[in-house]
């Protein structure tokens, strides 16, 4: 139950729906879009994600938007431990689902799979109900028990106050085995210069409740003698975003955003551990990680869309930094070839980040413990590339079907960063 996030999606969508007012929306009353994405990492996680979205725009320009999404994730996920030349055995509380068969050396001690009658494979977490797995020498330690299901819903409503101002409010909710999130948001868009300029301001508030399986591990407590500090944790987030959208010509429009996110609460991943090494490089123990309780992220984002020779070019760049030491660059380019009622859209994305200042590959038993430390590869220096193509066919005036296939690859300083995934997606959209 390493976690993924739906909330960002929902909030982004809420902002996006208001930013999108600039150039008009579909004139149809209702639009329904259904999509399914299959995400599959080689030897790791597989995710299946169906989504349904409904929106309606009325004659006054008022827009209402509902989205419901479901995620089902399973597979193996890096647990944070360093690669070793010895076989490593771990205790897992991150789930006890259908992958139990892959555990190579389950001990005779506490061990449980989900054999209840409630039709799910969730971790039925109780302290002391754990499993074990062994990782061969030289391999990245992966916890094979990663499994989770998530349901999320959101709603957004925007309406014009007058010819120059549009406002919006929204709410969202998501729930998974060990995580619950509730958010509200609101925004204001001001149109200037014959609607060639749009200034937007948005605010979002969110509360997250985390209930780690097996309890919240005490910072740097050992895996073999896990101490817990409680069963539930909280996190509160305030998001702010200001946006400028400017029409550049009859064929070009740009957007420039600044955003800030202040998060206060539990940021630690309760399932991630760190190898504690002795003087000979031998693994002596595994410690639960510990992250700061506050994080402030900021980003500047610029995007431009050109209509060129009948095609559409979409280019964007984001620079993000935070008080954990992360600095990242993200480039994204899409080129859409429009051929009658068919389009072909190649896509390339490049991302690179510097490590957080508390990222470690492992800790040494001869050193004092730091205040914060994590061996989660996602906090290390890494880069990733996405290459793909989307094919769309508008086979009726108000109907469109599209397919997308992409390859997502990561590499970085950590051995665990070596990952590649295949993404397959189908969308069907109808307006009536």
């Amino acid at each position, binding site marked *: 139950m390493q*976690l*993924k*996030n*739906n*909330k*960002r*999606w929902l909030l*982004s*969508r809420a*902002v*996006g729906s*208001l930013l*999108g007012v600039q*150039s*008009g929306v*579909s004139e149809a009353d209702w639009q329904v*879009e259904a999509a399914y994405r299959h995400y599959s990492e080689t030897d790791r996680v597989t995710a299946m*994600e169906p989504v349904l979205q409904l929106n309606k725009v009325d004659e006054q320009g008022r827009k209402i938007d509902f989205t419901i999404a479901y995620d089902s994730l399973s597979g193996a996920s890096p647990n944070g431990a360093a690669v070793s030349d010895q076989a490593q055995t771990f205790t897992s509380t991150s789930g006890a689902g259908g992958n139990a068969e892959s555990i190579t050396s389950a001990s005779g001690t506490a061990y449980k799979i989900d054999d209840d009658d409630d039709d799910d494979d969730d971790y039925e977490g109780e302290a002391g109900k754990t499993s074990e797995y062994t990782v061969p020498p030289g391999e990245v330690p992966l916890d094979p028990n990663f499994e989770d299901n998530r349901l999320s819903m959101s709603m957004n409503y925007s309406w014009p106050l007058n010819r120059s101002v549009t406002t919006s409010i929204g709410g969202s909710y998501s729930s998974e085995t060990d*995580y619950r*999130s509730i958010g509200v948001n609101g925004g204001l868009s001001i149109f200037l*210069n*014959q609607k060639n300029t749009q200034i937007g301001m*948005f605010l979002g508030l*969110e509360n*997250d409740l985390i209930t780690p399986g097996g309890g919240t591990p005490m910072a740097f407590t050992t895996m073999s003698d896990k101490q817990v500090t409680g069963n539930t944790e909280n*996190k509160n*987030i*305030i998001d702010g975003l200001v946006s400028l959208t*400017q*029409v550049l*010509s*009859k*064929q070009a*429009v*740009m957007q*420039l*955003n600044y*955003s800030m*996110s202040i998060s206060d609460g539990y940021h*630690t991943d*309760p399932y991630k551990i760190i190898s504690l090494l002795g003087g000979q490089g031998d693994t002596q123990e595994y410690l639960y990680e510990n992250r700061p309780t506050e994080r402030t992220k900021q980003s*500047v*984002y*610029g995007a431009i*869309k050109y*209509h060129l020779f009948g095609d*559409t070019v979409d280019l964007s*760049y984001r*620079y*993000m930094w935070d008080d954990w030491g*992360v*600095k*990242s*660059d993200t480039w994204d380019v899409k080129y859409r070839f429009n051929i009658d009622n068919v389009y072909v859209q190649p896509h390339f994305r490049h*991302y690179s*980040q510097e490590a957080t200042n508390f990222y470690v590959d492992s800790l040494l038993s001869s050193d004092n413990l730091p205040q914060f430390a994590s061996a989660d590869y*996602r906090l290390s220096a890494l880069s990733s590339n996405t290459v793909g193509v989307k094919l769309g066919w508008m086979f009726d005036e108000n109907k469109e079907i599209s397919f997308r296939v992409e390859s997502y690859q990561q590499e970085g300083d950590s051995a665990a960063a070596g*990952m590649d995934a295949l993404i397959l*997606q189908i*969308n069907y959209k109808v307006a009536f």
Partner: protein
Amino acid sequence: MIDMIKRVVGRKGMGLYAGARRLIVARFFILLLMPLFGCGLLPEVKPWQKQVLAKPEMTFGSNELDEGFDDHIYFSKEASSGGRGFGGGGCGCN
């Protein structure tokens, strides 16, 4: 403004590759910010001249499902989020 951009994208210990990247980034933002310094340079686009701009693919936020899927994946695999929309919270994994 240029100094601010350089400060934003600047970092210690940059090699030749990073230096070139910073230059590209700075030029990209200059391109984006040009309208702010000289709106007079921009043609005034009338409402009836916005047929192309009204196309869904020319509208920011018109492809929410795809963008939502992407943000969902990248948030869970990378230490960054936000920019296009909100960037805060929702999960303890990053």
